[in-house]
């Protein structure tokens, strides 16, 4: 009993800080929590390891670490938790009918994700007067570049000590200036004045290309996916127009743009 309450406390600590360094988490997950999981027919501890402990650093490594983690998570998870319908009522799960408990049941999904939503979906009118039409947008985990970071103004009751911006003006202009000082990928889908090299009219014809696997091409590939509907059409109607040397020449400046951003 004492043991369990100690674990509960440990879990509370994780919940409170949420993004503590990985080493601690591994210690908890691997050594202590597993014991608890064996006793309780809940997936609590395993979940903690599965999705609460991503590194604080940045987005790229977040994605890069995924494959390895997923394999590990799957293995430990399947030992304790029915992934599919089959174990329901089987001996594999000693207590199949825990009252009022939901089970993880789903078909296995493979491959990359493609998600749509927000203002990228359907017909929307942007800006308060509806002056601008939205454009369709599909997001995927197929590649992992990053946009600029928005400013972090202080919410009511917060101060600079909390790591937010006290000197802040809630206007489009302020945010534009703030972001333009950063070194990051220009979002050509939604910025009118990206450096010419990264404009969407250049990426679109890039559609049918077989891209090589350089970093630069990975970024290009991402735009392909965002434009996937148009590209599907483009492939049908522009067969053999691919391999356009004009397009190959245009890829470089995308990388160069990162350098340009440093000037500020």
């Amino acid at each position, binding site marked *: 009993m004492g043991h369990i309450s100690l674990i509960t406390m440990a879990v509370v600590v994780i919940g409170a800080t949420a993004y503590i360094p990985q080493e601690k988490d591994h210690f908890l997950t691997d050594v202590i929590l597993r014991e608890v999981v064996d006793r309780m027919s809940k997936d609590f501890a395993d979940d903690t390891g599965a999705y609460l402990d991503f590194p604080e650093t940045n987005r790229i490594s977040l994605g890069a670490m995924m494959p390895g983690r997923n394999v590990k*998570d799957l293995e430990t998870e399947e030992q304790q938790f029915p992934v*599919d319908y089959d174990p329901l009522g089987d001996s594999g799960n000693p207590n199949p009918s825990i009252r009022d408990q939901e089970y993880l049941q789903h078909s296995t999904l493979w491959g990359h994700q493609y998600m749509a939503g927000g203002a990228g979906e359907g017909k929307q009118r942007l800006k308060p007067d509806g002056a601008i039409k939205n454009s369709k947008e599909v997001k995927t985990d197929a590649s992992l570049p990053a946009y600029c970071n928005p400013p972090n103004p202080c919410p009511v009751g917060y101060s600079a000590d909390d790591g937010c911006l006290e000197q802040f003006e809630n206007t489009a202009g302020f945010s534009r200036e703030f972001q333009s000082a950063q070194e990051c990928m220009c979002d050509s889908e939604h910025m009118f004045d990206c450096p010419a090299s990264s404009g969407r009219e250049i990426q679109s014809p890039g559609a049918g290309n077989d891209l090589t696997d350089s970093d630069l091409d990975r970024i290009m590939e991402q735009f392909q996916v965002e434009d996937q509907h148009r590209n599907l059409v483009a492939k049908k109607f522009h067969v053999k127009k691919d391999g356009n040397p004009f397009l190959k020449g245009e890829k470089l400046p995308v990388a160069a743009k990162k350098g340009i951003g440093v000037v500020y």
Partner: protein
Amino acid sequence: MRPQQDPSDPYFPFQWYLKNTGQNGGKAKLDLNVEAAWAQGVTGKNVTTAIMDDGVDYIHPDLKYNYNARASYDFSSNDAYPYPRYTDDWFNSHGTRCAGEVAAARDNGVCGVGVAYDSKIAGIRMLDQPYMTDLIEANSMGHEPNLIDIYSASWGPTDDGKTVDGPRNATMRAIVRGVNEGRNGLGNIYVWASGDGGEDDDCNCDGYAASMWTISINSAINDGQNAHYDESCSSTLASTFSNGAKDPNTGVATTDLYGKCTTTHSGTSAAAPEAAGVFALALEANPQLTWRDIQHLTVLTSKRNSLFDAKGRFHWTMNGVGLEFNHLFGFGVLDAGAMVALAKQWKTVPARYHCEGGTVSETQEIPSSRSVLLKINTNACQGTETQVSYLEHVQAVITLNATRRGDVELFLTSPMGTRSMILSRRVNDDDHRDGFAKWPFMTTHTWGEYPQGTWSLEISFNSQTPQSGFIKEWTLMLHGTRDPPYSGLPVSDPHSKLAIVKKAHEERNKL
């Protein structure tokens, strides 16, 4: 009931979804009936709704005092402040618009008013990176589950009419954990937009909307028609309102980026936050409501009102215990006043059980011009620990393939004769390789019914050209209670849906 004045906020007259007076060609009184809830003194106090989107302008004068900073996070740039990223086209205004629908402040002279104007919103910025990962989704849906009561999502697999996709591993676990353990064990409420794919898509192919653990919300326009972009599916539980009428001034009025206001918010993604706001009202009225109580309350208090299918395809039908449903609108449009009133008297529904009703696993060919009829006769685990006597959700877990997946239609009929279209034709889905692999098609239409007896599954092609395929497996999953769910509830209105279902359940027990 206290006499109430209309909010004085300048955009309130444009908020026909809160109070429809017939403005701009709408139908008077076709609205969320929020004033009846407010008149009961319920405005969303101590309830937090997380907007999982592209960020929230939490400096907005109409939102800043209703912003729950502790429960917020920015997963797109990994910090605690989900302020939206600037783009020239103001693309990232979506979360701010959704937030205003839920919790814009009242009588402050700014924009309009939220459905639950004393509730809090949390911002979870997770849509604004050029990619999406399972980890971002999972962390978003599992963020601060004891501080956040309701999660509102207006995203999901691409609504291109040919995608079949859903939550991946970590995300699925986050959802399951949310309903099992969130809100200190009462379960988080996940509200989902059913999708903007139009009639060529079916939201049962969207594993988020089709999940039992999400409440999927469709939208109607200001005169009661379905919106032209509406996707339909049998997993939709209820509806709220969005744009789509010819008059361009019938969009959703709400807050916009950089302290501004707008009247042009749109899509089913505008409908989901309205539902989240109504659920916030219900949770203030009764903070002990579980995630299942909210679904039961939704079923029992949603109204047919004057909702109708503009194309005359889907009619209102009564299920076996007297509940009216429509394939487009679920059990109807949310009624905040009625939900709050019932929430106050509510007694938590009995324990829920899961029963595998049966499986058909012999492979059968689906002929091109004739349907295949499969039957499962089930006692719904009677006499076992998992007996289900009163249904909540039903899933048909199906494996099949076809020369053209989009031409396959599936109908599930309950022992009481309720027929759910669990998969409609999707003209753009030309898949001929993957088919469906143990895909859980869900229906809410048989809510409250008794599962014992013969269920049938009808598989057919709806196609101009000859097709072929094979149905390989059908497993019937029944979810619900062993005990009658509403026996402890007082009935105040003999014509209410509660009265009708309760009477049906009581009469059966006499037999």
